[in-house]
């Protein structure tokens, strides 16, 4: 692979340690949250959450938290895995082109015989591969605990939630990478992608609360989970929206990267 795709191979080689640490951390946190469910269901969760207003419960995805699918969907897939993976994807996206360019590390790569398209394409592939590995880790842990603890979450729903999580995280990684490639500035990439993530979470969670349902419909996080990713099944149209949004963002980033001054 290092012959045909030297940049992809090089980036993955340098990232393997960091990726392994992320995988272990993500597996522990997701495993911990998911395995808490049997203990939680022993307590009277309904009573614990009854004091919350109904709208807030829906916004947090806690309305069906007493079922295994509802709990894993809101706690693991809707909260900890989502947040950690967003941090990884946005940070990793900004560190794919903008970070090393800004530090000056990319100068000899950019003056190598490879075209800018290879640099953009192979670094993008490296980011998506890392995201894929981490999403697979989340899936593997949840899938295993589902079997071991006999949680009874339908496997089809779990696959659907994972695919849509993968597309969502890939989208935010792509936004961060594309912004960084367009601007050449790490802070701009991080700030832009993080702001989009926060807005999109707020639109999805709070829009319906204030009677503006359409806010959730334009939110990428809404396309991923609506109220609960684990119970909604596969939504082809929303998945397609995530794919198209990623594609458009990446095309825009490439358009600028191909034309602008580098290393300024």
């Amino acid at each position, binding site marked *: 692979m290092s*012959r045909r795709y030297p940049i992809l191979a090089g980036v993955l080689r340098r990232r393997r340690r960091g990726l392994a640490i992320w995988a272990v951390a993500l597996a522990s946190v997701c495993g911990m949250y998911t395995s808490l469910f049997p203990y939680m269901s022993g307590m009277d969760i309904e009573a614990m959450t009854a004091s919350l207003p109904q709208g807030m419960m829906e916004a947090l995805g806690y309305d069906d938290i007493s079922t295994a699918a509802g709990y894993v969907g809101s706690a693991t897939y809707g909260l900890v895995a989502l947040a950690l993976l967003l941090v990884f994807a946005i940070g990793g996206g900004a560190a794919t082109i903008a970070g090393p360019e800004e530090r000056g*590390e990319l100068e000899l790569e*950019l003056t*190598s*015989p*490879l075209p800018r398209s290879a640099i953009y394409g192979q670094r993008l592939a490296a980011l998506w591969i890392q995201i894929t590995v981490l999403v697979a880790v989340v899936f593997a842990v949840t899938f295993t605990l589902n079997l071991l603890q006999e949680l009874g979450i339908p496997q089809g729903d779990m696959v659907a939630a994972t695919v849509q999580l993968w597309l969502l995280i890939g989208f935010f990684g792509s936004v961060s990478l594309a912004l960084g490639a367009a601007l050449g500035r790490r802070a701009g990439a991080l700030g832009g992608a993080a702001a989009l993530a926060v807005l999109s979470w707020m639109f999805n969670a709070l829009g319906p609360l204030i009677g503006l349902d359409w806010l959730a419909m334009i939110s990428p996080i809404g396309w991923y989970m609506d109220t609960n990713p684990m119970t909604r099944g596969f939504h082809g149209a929303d998945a397609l929206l995530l794919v198209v949004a990623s594609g458009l963002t990446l095309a825009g980033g490439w358009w600028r990267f*191909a034309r602008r001054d580098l290393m300024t």
Partner: protein
Amino acid sequence: MIAIRELVKDYGPFRALHGVDLEVARGEAFGFIGPNGAGKSTAIRCLLDLLRPTSGSVEVLGTRDLAKHPAVRARIGYLPGELVMAGKQTARDHLTYLRELRGGAGSGRMEALAERFGLDLDRPFRGLSKGNKQKVGVVQAFMHEPELLILDEPTSGLDPLLQQEFLSLAREAREAGATLFISSHILSELEAVARRVAIIRAGRIVDVEDVAILRERAGQHLSLTFDAPLSAAAIDAFSAMPELEGLVISENALTAVLHGSPDRVLKEAARSTVTAWSAHDRNLEELFMERYREPDAADHDGRRR
């Protein structure tokens, strides 16, 4: 090999290059000299397609559009003015990676060059001194035996011994037929390799000159001390010499800037008893102060470019 025509480069409202013209022939060793911030690195980055010209054109190794033909860069060795590499990896990791980006060229020479410059390939880049980092830069620029070497301030950070080693490496490359384009703000380090030199100042080429002529123009600070005040005849003789500029004679000391051969001065001085003497090359800054102070100073030569 290199042809730059009316190259203009703006950074926002700031114009870094005001229409630069340069031509470097195959096999030539060409110096590119000017004070820091004059636009040397900007011009070099346009050559490599890191920067896109605002107007004008750049031709390297027969291609005018490196964006369309990036593979041409396999035949170029480039040493950046300030080499930065990720800190955790060793020099060997970095060099191996660069070799892969170039399709495997340079395997054989990497170790030999590292040994020649006394570079330990297995230490993390982060821990290397400035000089050692510069050695990594030199090794990567030369290891694939490129036809064209573009070197931005190549000897900065190297100690004098390694500067000599670098200069002999550059001469070997030239003898092997490579074309060299070397930027510097120090004239003496170019003298050892380059034959022709372009002088850039504030984004304009103010002169393209033979390096020996430039050296003569820059001159040397000369000072002589005698055991007694000079005779009137000796003072007249020194005053009449056109190669002495800014001649000052006070009591038994003489100072001047010498342009060209010291022969007549020494023969005249030898008539008296010389108790002390010194002569050292003037640096480029002094030459700039004197000759290229005005951006249009080269007009006086009638050879503005």
